[in-house]
C-alpha cells in the first residue's frame, strides 16, 4: 500500500506541475521556467510508473524510451523553425499511435489471460482506440500534405460526406456493440482498422492550406483519447493531461477560426476546406498595380520616420526573417522607429510569425497584436508588407460579397505609403484578389522577399 501511495502522489505532483507549467506560458518571462516545471512533472510521472508493482521488466521500456528519446531529440534539434507545422502534425501521429497501441495491448492482454473488460473499461478503451487511430492516420495524411508527399489539393469524390458519415456511425456502433460484448474480438479488430480508414478519409478531402485547423482538431482528438485511456486505466494524470491537451487544441482552433472569420462549428463538423475550393475573385477597381523598383522603395524607406512591418506566410516561405531583422537594424540606425504588426492568423500556424521573428533575434516587445497596433497605421509613414496577403486585404472591411468579409485585418492601407513584397500577382491562401495591391499609394516590389529585403538593406546602409 505504501508504494501505491507514493505512485499516486507522484502522479498528483506531476499533474500540478503540468498545470503550473502551462500557467508559466502566460508570459514570455516565465515561460522557460514553466517548461522546466512540466519537465520535472514528466520525470515524476515516469518515476512513479517505474515504482508500480505491475512493472516487472525494464528492458523493453528502456529500449523503447531510448529509441524514442534519441529520435525525438534529433528531430527537434535539426528541424528548421519554418517546418513547425509539419513537426506538430508528425508528433500528433505518434501520440495517436501510442494511445491506440496502449488500448489494443490492454485488450489483447485481457483476452489472453481470459478476462473481460467491464463496461466502463470497454467504453473507454473503445473510444481510446477509435480516437487514437483516427489521430494517427489523420495526422500522417496532414503531415504528408504539408510536406508535399501527398498532393496538397483536396482529394474529393461524390458522396464523400455521406461516406464519412457512414464510417463514423459504423465505428460508434462497433464501440457500443463491444460494450455489450466485450469479448467480440473480431469487432475490436474491425474497429481499429476502420478507425485508421476514417483518419485518412477525414483529412484527404481537405486542402493543404487548411491543415492548421485540422491539426488543432486532431490535437483535441488526441487529448480526448488520452483522457479515455485515463478512464480505462483509472489513471488520473492521464485524464488531466488529456483534458489539458484537448482543451488547448480546442482553444487554438477556435481562435484561428474566429480570426479567419469562419464559424467554429463549421470547422468542427468538417465544413472547412470550402474557402480553398470556392475561389471567388473579388472585383477590383480596373487599375493596374503600381509596380516599383527596389530603388523607388528604398527612397520611400529612407524618408520614413515610422515603419510598420507586416509579415505573412511569404516571409516563412522565403525564410526572410533574418533579412527583415537586418533591415530593421539599418532603419533604426537611421533614426526610424520600426514595429511589427502580427495578425493572429498570419502564416500557417498560431504564433507562426512570432516564432520566426524570435528566431531572427527580433525582440518580442517590438511585436504587436492586431488590437494593439491597428490604430497606429494611420500615423505610420510606411507599411512594409512582407509576404502577407489575406491579412491585409481591405475587402474584409468593405466587400460584403468577399469570403473573408468581416475578418479583422491589419489596416496597412491606412499608412501614408505601403510597400508590398511578393513574387507574382497570384492571390494568397484564401484565393481572392487584394485591392490593396492596386491602391494608388501602394508600391508593389515583385521578387522573393528575402532577396528584395537584402537589397533594401544594402542600399540603405550604403546610402
Amino acid at each position, binding site marked *: 500500500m505504501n508504494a501505491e501511495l507514493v505512485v499516486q502522489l507522484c502522479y498528483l505532483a506531476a499533474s500540478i506541475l503540468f498545470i503550473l507549467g502551462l500557467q508559466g506560458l502566460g508570459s514570455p518571462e516565465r515561460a522557460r521556467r514553466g517548461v522546466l516545471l512540466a519537465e520535472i512533472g*514528466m520525470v515524476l510521472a515516469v518515476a512513479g510508473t517505474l515504482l508500480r508493482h505491475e512493472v516487472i521488466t525494464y528492458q523493453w521500456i528502456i529500449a523503447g524510451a531510448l529509441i524514442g528519446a534519441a529520435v525525438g*531529440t534529433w528531430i527537434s534539434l535539426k528541424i528548421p523553425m519554418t517546418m*513547425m507545422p509539419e513537426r506538430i502534425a508528425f508528433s500528433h501521429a505518434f501520440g495517436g499511435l501510442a494511445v491506440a497501441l496502449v488500448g489494443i495491448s490492454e485488450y489483447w492482454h485481457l483476452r489472453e489471460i481470459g478476462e473481460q473488460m467491464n463496461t466502463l473499461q470497454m467504453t473507454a478503451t473503445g473510444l481510446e482506440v477509435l480516437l487514437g487511430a483516427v489521430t494517427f492516420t489523420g495526422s500522417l495524411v496532414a503531415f504528408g500534405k504539408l510536406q508535399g508527399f501527398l498532393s496538397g489539393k483536396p482529394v474529393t469524390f461524390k458522396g464523400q460526406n455521406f461516406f464519412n458519415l457512414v464510417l463514423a456511425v459504423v465505428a460508434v456502433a462497433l464501440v457500443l456493440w463491444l460494450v455489450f460484448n466485450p469479448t467480440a474480438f473480431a469487432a475490436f479488430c474491425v474497429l481499429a482498422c476502420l478507425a485508421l480508414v476514417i483518419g485518412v478519409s477525414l483529412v484527404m478531402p481537405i486542402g493543404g492550406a487548411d491543415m492548421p485547423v485540422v491539426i488543432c482538431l486532431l490535437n483535441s482528438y488526441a487529448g480526448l483519447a488520452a483522457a479515455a485511456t485515463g*478512464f480505462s486505466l483509472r489513471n488520473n494524470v492521464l*485524464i488531466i493531461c488529456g483534458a489539458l491537451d484537448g482543451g488547448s487544441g480546442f482553444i487554438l482552433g477556435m481562435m484561428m477560426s474566429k480570426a479567419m472569420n469562419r464559424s467554429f462549428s463549421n470547422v468542427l463538423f468538417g465544413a472547412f476546406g470550402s474557402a480553398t475550393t470556392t475561389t471567388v475573385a473579388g472585383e477590383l477597381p480596373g487599375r493596374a498595380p503600381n509596380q516599383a523598383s527596389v530603388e523607388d522603395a528604398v527612397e520611400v524607406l529612407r524618408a520614413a520616420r515610422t515603419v510598420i512591418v507586416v509579415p505573412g506566410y511569404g516571409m516563412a516561405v522565403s525564410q526572410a526573417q533574418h533579412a527583415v531583422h537586418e533591415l530593421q537594424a539599418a532603419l533604426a540606425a537611421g533614426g526610424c522607429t520600426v514595429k511589427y504588426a502580427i495578425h493572429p492568423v498570419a502564416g500557417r500556424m498560431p504564433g507562426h510569425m*512570432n516564432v520566426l521573428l524570435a528566431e531572427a*533575434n527580433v525582440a518580442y516587445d517590438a511585436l504587436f497584436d492586431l488590437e494593439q497596433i491597428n490604430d497606429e497605421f494611420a500615423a505610420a509613414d510606411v507599411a512594409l508588407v512582407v509576404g502577407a496577403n489575406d491579412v491585409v486585404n481591405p475587402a474584409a472591411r468593405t466587400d460584403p460579397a468577399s469570403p473573408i468579409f468581416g475578418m479583422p485585418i491589419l489596416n496597412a492601407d491606412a499608412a501614408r505609403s505601403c510597400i508590398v513584397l511578393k513574387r507574382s500577382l497570384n492571390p494568397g491562401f484564401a484565393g481572392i484578389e487584394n485591392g490593396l495591391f492596386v491602391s494608388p499609394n501602394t508600391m508593389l516590389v515583385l521578387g522573393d522577399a528575402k532577396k528584395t529585403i537584402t537589397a533594401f538593406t544594402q542600399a540603405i546602409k550604403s546610402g
Partner: protein
Amino acid sequence: MTDLLESLVFGLYIFTLAVFVGFQVLERVPKLLHTPLMAATNAISGISLVGSMVAAGSGRGTVATVMGTVAVAAASLNVVGGFVITDRMLRMFKKREGPRK
C-alpha cells in the same frame, strides 16, 4: 457505491475540473507564445508514456509487449522531442535587442 460507478464518477469530476483549469490557463497564453504552447502540449500529451510503460513492462507476452514497446518509443519521442523544441523556441524569445550578427 459500486467500485465501477465510483471510478466513473471520480473520473468525470477530475476530467471536468481539469477542463476548467485547462481553459482558464490556456486562455491566458498570449498569441506570441501560441507555437511554443502547441509544442508544449504536444510534449505533455506524451504522458501516455505512463500507460505504455505498463503495457511494455508487465511481462504480458510477446504481442502485448511489442505493442507496448512501440508505444513507449512513440510516446517518449513526443515527450523528449516536444520539450526540446519548446525550450529551443522559448530560448529565442528575447525582450531586449540581442547582439546583431
